[in-house]
């Protein structure tokens, strides 16, 4: 029993793995749709193909991996355990996976019924996750800023889901009008609420720990999340009472928060004690540089009343900031949990005196080699640059960007699947002795 203790808090490998491996699958699917439909699809913001690709990325890549990472990290970060984790993760993952596929196909094939199926599946998956996780978080004895930030992120996910369901009903039924004006609010709650709040909540803990840096300033940890949340709430209220001054102040507050988070993270990384630039550090730097660029471009364009290419900010936020951060984190989470599970299985055998039957537990860089991760990072970076160029000159850069994006996602999927295969192989070696 004693040997299993360190796994009491860590869920079984399949729990986070199913979410994390699904993410690049949707990333690849999004890239293939770009290749299939070509540059005409981005001729306007509301094209069904654009909406399908956006949701394959925001739900399929980002939200999918964020739920998986939460299930893995929350026992460690918050000292809380999900009961019956395998069953729970299955009940969340399956409708989430199917719901995202249905939503994308509903747009691509223009089948109204699929919108209804998608919103039932996604609504079920998110409600269950939000209720159970919020309940666990509220009961956690941990009082770190991460806890309240995670609760705010869950609330933001709830608002995003409600707005999303309402919008999907506009697409899928004739009784509900399509409320296009709410789209910006839906994506603000999704990207600046759910995604940014959760990433910053995790960053407060993992950046100082894994790169050996100073802590984030206490004022940032304590107030940034609340400011973002309050600014988003104020912004939402302007849809009911259109007060221009509230809208302007909320937007300035949001931009300042993004800038503060990006700059403080880049500063901490610059002053880190661990000089080794590992792959996750590169992804963090890239992500924060994109956030900085996004805020600067957005701020300058607003000040001089210039029109930006329609998809520039979206590419910077989704691909440049959020996907980069998560991609980098995957290279820490997956190899470590494989190592941890194999080590504990090995220790079990040692505890039973079966030393000869142990397998050799490799360190993290043998599970996903640094060179493989580095090449995938290069393809990711190149695809980002090309996607940005494609938002300005689509006829020139659209196909190379989509192709590089497909390669980067396929590479990530390959790296993750290979590590899962490796784990299964080692586990099979072990089970022959048990």
């Amino acid at each position, binding site marked *: 029993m004693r040997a299993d203790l360190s796994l009491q808090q860590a869920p079984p490998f399949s729990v986070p793995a199913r979410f994390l491996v699904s993410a690049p699958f949707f990333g690849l699917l999004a890239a293939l749709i770009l290749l299939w439909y070509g540059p005409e699809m981005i001729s306007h913001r509301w094209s069904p193909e654009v909406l399908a690709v956006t949701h394959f990325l925001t739900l399929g890549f980002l939200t999918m991996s964020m739920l998986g990472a939460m299930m893995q990290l929350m026992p460690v970060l918050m000292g809380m355990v999900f009961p019956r984790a395998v069953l729970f993760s299955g009940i969340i993952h399956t409708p989430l996976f199917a719901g995202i596929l249905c939503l994308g196909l509903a747009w691509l094939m223009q089948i109204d019924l699929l919108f209804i199926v998608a919103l039932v599946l996604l609504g079920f998956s998110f409600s269950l996750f939000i209720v159970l996780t919020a309940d666990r978080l509220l009961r956690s004895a941990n009082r770190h800023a991460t806890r309240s930030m995670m609760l705010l992120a869950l609330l933001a996910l709830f608002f995003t889901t409600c707005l999303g369901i309402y919008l999907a009903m506009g697409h899928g039924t004739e009784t509900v009008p399509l409320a296009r004006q709410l789209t910006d609010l839906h994506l603000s709650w999704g990207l600046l609420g759910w995604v940014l709040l959760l990433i910053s909540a995790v960053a407060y803990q993992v950046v100082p720990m894994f790169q050996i840096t100073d802590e984030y300033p206490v004022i940032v940890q304590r107030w940034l999340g609340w400011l973002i949340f309050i600014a988003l709430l104020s912004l939402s209220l302007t849809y009911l009472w259109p007060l221009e001054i509230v809208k302007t102040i909320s937007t300035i507050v949001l931009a300042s928060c993004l800038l503060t988070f990006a700059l403080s993270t880049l500063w901490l990384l610059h002053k880190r004690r661990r000089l*080794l630039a590992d792959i996750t550090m590169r992804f963090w730097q890239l992500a924060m540089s994109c956030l900085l660029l996004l805020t600067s471009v957005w701020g300058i364009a607003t000040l001089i009343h210039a029109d930006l290419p329609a998809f520039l900010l979206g590419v910077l936020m989704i691909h440049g900031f959020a996907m980069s951060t998560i991609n980098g984190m995957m290279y820490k989470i997956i190899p470590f949990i494989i190592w941890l599970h194999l080590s504990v299985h090995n220790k079990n055998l040692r505890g039973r005196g079966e030393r000869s039957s142990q397998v050799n537990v490799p360190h993290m860089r043998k599970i996903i080699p640094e060179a493989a991760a580095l090449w995938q990072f290069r393809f990711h970076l190149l695809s980002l640059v090309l996607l940005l160029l494609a938002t300005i000159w689509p006829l020139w850069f659209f196909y190379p960007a989509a192709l590089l994006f497909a390669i980067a996602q396929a590479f990530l999927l390959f790296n993750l699947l290979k590590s899962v295969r490796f784990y299964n192989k080692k586990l099979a070696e072990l089970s022959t002795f048990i």
Partner: protein
Amino acid sequence: MKIKQFMTQDHKDCDLLFAKAENAAAKDDWTTASQAFNAFVQAMERHLGIEEQELFPAFEEETGVKTGPTEMMRMEHDQMRVLFAEMEYALEQKNCDDYLGIADTLLILMQQHNMKEEQMLYNMMDQHLPNDFSHWQKKFDEWDED
């Protein structure tokens, strides 16, 4: 000063030694790496030893809980010691890739362990054990003398 502050600071001191050894190994400077690694392991053994022989028994006696968080922490200490040994071997072999790979693994194990202590266990200890900084400082000094 409370146990939490004192022990958290010691975690950070150990982290710096870890980083120093890793930085040197990444540059193939094996002499510096070896010195820094030895200083790191020594500091870690002192930290783990004080926990296992002083803090944990005091906490277990005070609360009557012997199979809870302290047992888990002891198990993670053992996992870390296995990695110390593997790192030492890689250091002797001057195998940069292995050293950095094992160090990466240790860093995550160590940090998630530290987090559990700093955010949960030390708070519990501060509630149950004497808040006497000099008492725990003395234990560290005695350890150094041994």
